[in-house]
């Protein structure tokens, strides 16, 4: 038991930052799902009303920018963990 605890502590002390970087990159999951839903809805809206494509595109890009932000945060955190924390 004690050996296991020391192993875990050693792991967290040495490779914890890299592990964290891997976990932080999982933000891409949520952002990907959100952006996919947004794009699918935009396609549906364009198919239903092709003349509103300009407005739909503007709104879609804004929404994608907001959704992309979370993924970028995750990426930034993992880059910082890899190159600065170690």
């Amino acid at each position: 038991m004690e050996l296991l605890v020391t192993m875990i502590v050693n792991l967290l002390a040495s490779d914890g930052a890299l592990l964290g970087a891997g976990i932080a990159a999982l933000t891409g999951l949520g952002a990907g799902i959100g952006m996919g839903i947004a794009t699918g809805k935009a396609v549906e809206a364009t198919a239903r009303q092709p003349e509103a494509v300009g407005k739909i595109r503007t709104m879609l890009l804004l929404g994608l920018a907001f959704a992309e932000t979370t993924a970028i945060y995750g990426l930034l955190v993992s880059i910082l963990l890899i190159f600065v924390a170690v």
Partner: protein
Amino acid sequence: MQNLGSQQMAVDFSHLAEKIFPNIEPGEHVIEWGWFVVNDSVFSGFIVVAVLLLVALILRLTVIRHWKTTPTPIQMFLEWLVCFFDKSADEMTEKYSGLMGPYTFGAAAYICCGVLIELFGLRPAIADLGACIALALCTFFFIHALGFAKNKARRLLHYLNPINIVTDLAVPVSMTFRLFGSILSGMVIMDMIYLLVEGVLFTVVPIVLPAILTPLFTLFHALIQSYVFASLTLTFVQEAIESPPKKIKQKKRRAKSLLAAENATAAEA
């Protein structure tokens, strides 16, 4: 016989950290002229500003001086570019479009060119936290100055709700990190690809891979991030300058005064 597998994996990533965060190793990525000490990206920012000013001056002296009714291609491009920002500013911020149109155009031009300078081998000007914070604070200033200019003291009601204050303070932070993160990640990926290309000795990969990936991570990022920055600025300003809901009495008086003003202008005309 040589072990090909080990040769493929022998890519040295140790210089990457130094390239990405140059402050780790002081002295290498800092430019010094006497008392004038700047970062790598600040230096490329100066280059970008100088180039933009020079191009603007040249266009002012050549194309705009000889403005024609049958437009040349450059004139059409300039008109499209200016109209694109002016129109979207007109739609979002009716009264202040004269201020917001040029500001968004300038910010977008700086961001776009500051990223595209990466194609010349310099560090992008936006891959520095200071540049992103400066741009985001300009937007923050515009949001609140125009909000107060439009709604006067009624704007203070907006701050009674503490959640609104938190939301307002989050705006510059999120704009800063959106810009910084996306540009930095594009730069990191391109640097990694270049290191990979140096390490891998196959003939096809070095030519094809950067040629495909450079437009993806540099050009698209430049255009999309500048567009997103401009449209987000306009959206936040529009949110700030829309008048809060009022009582019916005040609305009537407002409508009356508006009517009177319209009548006066009509009479003048």
